[in-house]
């Protein structure tokens, strides 16, 4: 009899606790979700791996740049910023020019992580 009472109380408490825990997990997920700015920019004049690295390292010197990926075949560079930084497109274009190449059209977006 006593054992049944204990099980009922536990079941009742679990019904309160589980939604609470789930809510906390959901809220923490939302709270810690990060947005990163991403720039995809056309670069003309790029035609070999050695040149691609020059562009990559020039852009990586910019503050807040997390990752640079060059797509040589399509002449595009994808720049992912750190969560706490916004991209300065003029700085990106200047970095490409400084590497010896020509920046083209750029698109900006944000991605969640």
């Amino acid at each position, binding site marked *: 009899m006593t054992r049944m009472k204990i099980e009922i109380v536990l079941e009742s408490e679990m019904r309160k606790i589980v939604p609470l825990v789930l809510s906390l997990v959901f809220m923490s997920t939302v709270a810690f979700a990060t947005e990163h700015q991403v720039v995809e920019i056309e670069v003309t004049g790029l035609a*070999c791996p050695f040149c691609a690295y*020059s562009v990559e390292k020039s852009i990586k010197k910019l503050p807040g740049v997390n990752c640079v990926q060059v797509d040589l075949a399509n002449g595009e560079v994808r720049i992912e910023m750190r969560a706490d930084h916004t991209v300065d497109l003029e700085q990106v274009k200047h970095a490409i020019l400084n*590497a*010896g190449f020509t920046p083209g059209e750029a698109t900006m977006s944000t991605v969640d992580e």
Partner: protein
Amino acid sequence: MRYRNTLLGIALGLIIFGPAVGAPVTFNTALPVGGDEFVARGLVVVSQSGDGPGADDRDLASTSVIAVLGYGLNHRLALFGVLPYVDKELDITMNGSRVNRSSSGLGDASAFLRYTLVQRDQPGHTFRVAPFAGLKAPTADDNRSDSIGRLPPGLQSGSGAWDVFGGVTATYQTLDFQADAQASYRVRNEANGFDPGDEFRLDGSLQYRLWPQSLGDGVPDFLYAVLEANLVRRDNNRVNGADDPNSGGTTIYLSPGVQYVTRRWIVEGVVQLPVVQNLHGTALENDYVVRAGFRFNF
């Protein structure tokens, strides 16, 4: 005196125009060095000459290890410094006996500036034209001797003189192939009574991507087949003010090779084969030149 006629030209010709930054192996390119960026190159050049028509049966072997550092002052102007280490060995018959003479040590240092005058960029290809000009300083020893006496100018590590050189390079690069051409002139000045002839060069290079056959995402490594041609025209040397008839002339090289290009490294090698040697008098003919090296983008 006869054997020194072409030796200096061979050694110095290898030093300046070989080690530049870019895709051709035997001369410059117009491709950029980024602003405030460094590019390094290391090169080993092995040259063998020994088919001279003279009775002294000359045989000259030289090995040069050349270090080059390129720095982008901005995206159009780049400064290059060149420092060679040269080992030379000459076997010659003198008075009926075989004699070996040799020297080794740091060669003369050079520096030159290159400016990108024309830059036409399109998706996946670029066309550039870049004039360049530089100086070779007499930083190396030019007064070495052995048991026979003072070494001839061609065997000295340095020339003892300031030289000036300049030219223009053009590059057309696509994702599939690259073509380069260069015209250059070098004024070689007198020192120690020896005035080596000036040098005029025309160079061409074609690099064709063998692998990968098609490009996917990202930046794959490239393997190029390389074919270069070099026309080298040297004036007669002058010794104590008089023309040396056994010096100077024209040589045309064909240079097949390979080049493996990654994002940060290039490894390359060519063999320069003299297909035409129209040399004056008994000037020493070249058998072959082998060039192998790497480039590093850091």
